[in-house]
Structures are given as structure tokens and as C-alpha cells.
């Protein structure tokens, strides 16, 4: 038996033109199997078109794309793929149990397997109490949960999640994060497109930034030596010497009124920074570690005025 390829997704110079408009110019990706892959970029960068090409919904103008070792869009390979579209639309006359049964059957599951999986998935996304209500009566967050469940009903080897936390409250976001990690734990690859960089940062193994349909930067979030963490503090007046002294543990220090932002070398130096501030006689009202480095990088790459 041949070994499965180590890459879940591989593209080279993938391009899509709509008339004279270039939606994706030269997309080259390498997504490791079993990883959580973050796909980042500003609005209009070509993210959704790229995902549609990988799923076979949109035909590339040129370039090469393989998904789970088969050409992108291969019908049989789709048995191993789950997909939550960005704007998940559905038959709103179905109940969530019926929706899952439909998607399970369309994904190739037997009736018996569907009967097993539907209650498990409803439970996983917290919709068991609502299993017999029509989807037309659901809130946006509940629909998003139903959409996530349909993407996972057949235990796919590769899951595309396009803005999975859109419309979810913090509890729902936490649930999605746990589910994504659960998918990785069972060996699946997750391709995640999200605007919530804080979610991406704590969830993903790899991220790429795309702009105008091209990868402009890539980052391995678990690489050694990159433990930087942002801090957002609110303090009373600080002397220049106190601010300058922060350089011992942190970079990118900015001061705006009471707000102090900095990027610490690692979480280990946070107590030293706090001691330094308090020791200099400053009043510290708030001191919040924030992993902003990904967001910083995002803004640096795409520009702050392009809209998230």
C-alpha cells in the first residue's frame, strides 16, 4: 500500500481570472497533513476564491492544485473533505437533525452510520435541545453551529472552515476552538480562514498571509524562538527613563495617553516588566498580556487602512 502524501494541500501558481479581473494571481501553498492551517488576508485578497478552487467549486484559470493527493475537485476525494462556507446557507425548512442526516447521506455515510453520527454531532455543537426545531427559527450563532456540524458529520480527513466563528458569542468561539483542536487530535487537517486573529493565533500551527491572491508571508506559530507576547497596560504618567527601561524585556513600545503597548520577548518576562513599572513609581491600573504579534504582522503586511 502506498504511503499517503505528507501534504494535505499543495498548490503551485494557482490563478483565477474573472474576465480582466485577477482574483487570485499566483497562489502557492503547502499544507501539512494533521495541521491546523490559518489562511489570512484582507477582504478581497482572494481567500474565498482560493478555497473554492481547492474544493472544485471554481475552476482555476491556470496552475496546479492537489488536495489529499488528488486533483482539486476530484469527486471521490470529496468523501474525505468537509466544508463550512463563509456564508453558510441551508434549507431552512429542515431541522438540524435532518440537515445533518442529509449531509451525512450526501457524504456517503450509510443510514445506520448517519443514525449514530447525528446525535453525536448535535451534542458536540450543543444543539441537542434544539434538534427538532426548524433551522429557519435559529439565531445566527446556532446556524453556524449547525453548519460546523454538517462539515464534520462524515469525519473528514480535511476540513475547510471559512470564518467558522462568525456570529458566535465567546462561548461559541471557545466551543469552535475546542472542536478544531479535536479535529487535529484525531489526525484531520483543518484549513481555517478567520478574521479573528486572536483565535487563529491560539489555534493554528501554520499561517500564511495572502494579498492580491498571492502568499506574501508565512509563519510557523510553533516554531522555536517565537514566544513574543503583546501587553496592553493602562498606567499613570511614565517618565522617559521608565519607558526606555522597558527595552530590557520588550520592543515596539508605544505610549498613547494612559495606554501603553509593548511586545514582550516572552511570557516569562511579564513579571519583571510589571515590577519595573511599579518600582519606578507609576500607577498601574491594568496590565493585560495580548498575543498581538500575529495581528501586528497582519497589519504590517496588509496595511492598516485596507479593512479587516
Amino acid at each position, binding site marked *: 500500500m502506498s504511503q499517503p502524501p505528507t501534504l494535505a494541500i499543495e498548490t503551485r501558481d494557482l490563478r483565477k481570472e474573472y474576465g480582466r479581473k485577477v482574483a487570485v494571481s499566483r497562489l502557492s501553498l503547502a499544507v501539512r497533513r494533521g495541521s491546523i492551517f490559518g489562511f489570512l488576508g484582507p477582504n478581497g485578497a482572494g481567500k474565498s476564491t482560493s478555497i473554492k478552487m481547492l474544493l472544485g*467549486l471554481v475552476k482555476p484559470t491556470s496552475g496546479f492544485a492537489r488536495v489529499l493527493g488528488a486533483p482539486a475537485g476530484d*469527486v471521490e476525494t470529496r468523501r474525505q473533505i468537509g*466544508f463550512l462556507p463563509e456564508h453558510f446557507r*441551508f434549507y431552512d425548512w*429542515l431541522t438540524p437533525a435532518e440537515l445533518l442526516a442529509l449531509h451525512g447521506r450526501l*457524504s456517503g455515510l450509510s443510514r445506520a452510520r448517519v443514525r449514530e453520527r447525528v446525535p453525536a454531532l448535535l451534542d458536540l455543537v450543543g444543539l441537542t435541545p434544539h434538534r427538532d426545531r426548524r433551522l429557519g427559527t435559529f439565531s445566527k450563532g446556532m446556524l453556524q453551529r449547525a453548519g460546523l456540524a*454538517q462539515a464534520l458529520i462524515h469525519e473528514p480527513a480535511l476540513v475547510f472552515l471559512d470564518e467558522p466563528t462568525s456570529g458566535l458569542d465567546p462561548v461559541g468561539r471557545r466551543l469552535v476552538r475546542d472542536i478544531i483542536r479535536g479535529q487535529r487530535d484525531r489526525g484531520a487537517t483543518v484549513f481555517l480562514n478567520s478574521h479573528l486573529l486572536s483565535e487563529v493565533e491560539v489555534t493554528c500551527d501554520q499561517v500564511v498571509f495572502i494579498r492580491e491572491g498571492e502568499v506574501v508571508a508565512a509563519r510557523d506559530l510553533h516554531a522555536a524562538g517565537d514566544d513574543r507576547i503583546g501587553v496592553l497596560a493602562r498606567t499613570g504618567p511614565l517618565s522617559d527613563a521608565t519607558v526606555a527601561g522597558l527595552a530590557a524585556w520588550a520592543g515596539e513600545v508605544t505610549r498613547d495617553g494612559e495606554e501603553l503597548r509593548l511586545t514582550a520577548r516572552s511570557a516569562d518576562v511579564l513579571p519583571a516588566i510589571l515590577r519595573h513599572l511599579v518600582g519606578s513609581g507609576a500607577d498601574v491600573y491594568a496590565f493585560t498580556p495580548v498575543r498581538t504579534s500575529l495581528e501586528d504582522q497582519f497589519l504590517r503586511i496588509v496595511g492598516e487602512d485596507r479593512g479587516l
Partner: protein
Amino acid sequence: MGAWIMAGVTFREAARKRILWTALIVGVAFLAVFGAALHYQMADFAVRATIPFLRYQILSAMLLIGLYVVDLLAVLMTILTSIETVSGEIASGTIHAIATKPMARWQLLLGKWLGSAVMVLAFVTLTFGGTMVVAWWIGGVVPEHPLQGLLLVALECLLALAVTFAAGTWCSTLTNGVIVLGLFGLAFLGGWLEQMSGFTESARLMTIGIVTSLIMPSEALWRRAVFEMQSPLAGALPFSPFATVSIPSGTMIGYAGVYLLAALGVAVWHFQRRDL
């Protein structure tokens, strides 16, 4: 397998969204009015002691009027209930989670068409058959070849369905509606012109009628259905929808069948190729 699942979903959608039931209520309301008209006509016959021959001819003509309305209703129901099935799901993105499942796109499209076709055939059978049963029950009148008439009207509705699907793979819902209703309007006009050509013996009108039937053979199917079912009196009315001055040939009926398959083929071909 995927095609059957999609057919089931499409049919269930019609039932759950009350499209099917609303259409059937409209059909039943029509039958009630039709039945009442026949009932009072029968009462008038009894009062006036109308001779049996004339009575039969009048009832047959009333039956054809009823069937004509059912035909119009069925074609409109077919178009209106299926107009969004493809274009609406593409526009809303509902198709995305479905078209990424392990089934070829032709299965998805044909499955939806089959589900809609079952709904349409159920509607045609109940309303068309219901009209015939009401006419037989109240007036004791039966069309000449009821089964041929029913099959031809069913073919007309399936043709409408295939054309709506084909246009739906290209156009938005609104544009689709304009195109399909426009084509059926053209066929309707062509049918009348062809009838008139039979009366005025104008070869040019005949040519225009035939060309419009080639562009959209729906009206030709209805006129052939009338020819199969009509009474002699109804057929003798030259400018009515029941006139048989110019009878569509068997070749034209065959052409309509090929047209239906071609429309489905075009729908599948374009749906397979297009970006979603």
C-alpha cells in the same frame, strides 16, 4: 445515489414550504368552480329540455375550457415553483455546501429536476385528472383520448421545467423568469398565428407559427392535446384555443421530446462547467 437524495430533498422542500399544498389548494378551488358551473349548466339543460346532442357538445366544450385553464395553470405553476431551484441556490450560496459533496454536478442537477418533475406530474395528474373526473361525474362527459391529452400536457410541463432549469444555470432568478415566460408567450402567439393561417390560408403566417413552435414547442403540445381530446363542436371554433385548423404533427411532438432532452443536456453541460 446523490441524484436520488437530491430528488427526495427537492420534493420534500416543495411539500414543507407549502408550495405543493398551496398549488393543490388552487387546483381544488378551480375544480370547485368548474364543478359548480357544470352543475348549474346541467340544471339549465333540464329546465330547457336541451336535446342530448347539443347538450353533449356544450359539455364537451366546457370540459376543454376547463382543461385549457388547467394547462395554463400547470405551466405557470411549473415555472413559478422551479424558477429559484437552481439560480436561487447559486445566488444565495446554498449550493456551496451541497456541490462539495462526493457527487458529480450532473447528479445534483438531475436530482433536483427529478424531484421537481415528480411534484409537477402530481399536480398535473390531480388537476387534469380531477377536471375529467368532475366532468364525467356531473356532466357524464369524457374527452376523446384522455390519456393522450394528459401525457401531452405533462410533457409540456416537463418541457417548461427543463427550460427553466437550463436558463437557471445561466441567469439570475428574475432574468430566468423573464426568459422562460417570454418563450412561452412567444409560443402562445405562434400557436394563434398558425391557427389563423389555417383559416386565412396564409403561408407566411404558417411559417411564422412553425418557426415559433421550433423555438418553443410548448403550445404545439397543447394544440395536439386538444386535437386528441376535442369534441367536433369545439374543434369547429376557428379562433379558439381548441381549434384544430392546423394540427401539430407527430414529428413536432417528437421534436418537443428532443427539445426537452436537449434543454436538460444544456442545463447539465453548463452547470458542470460553471463556477459556483
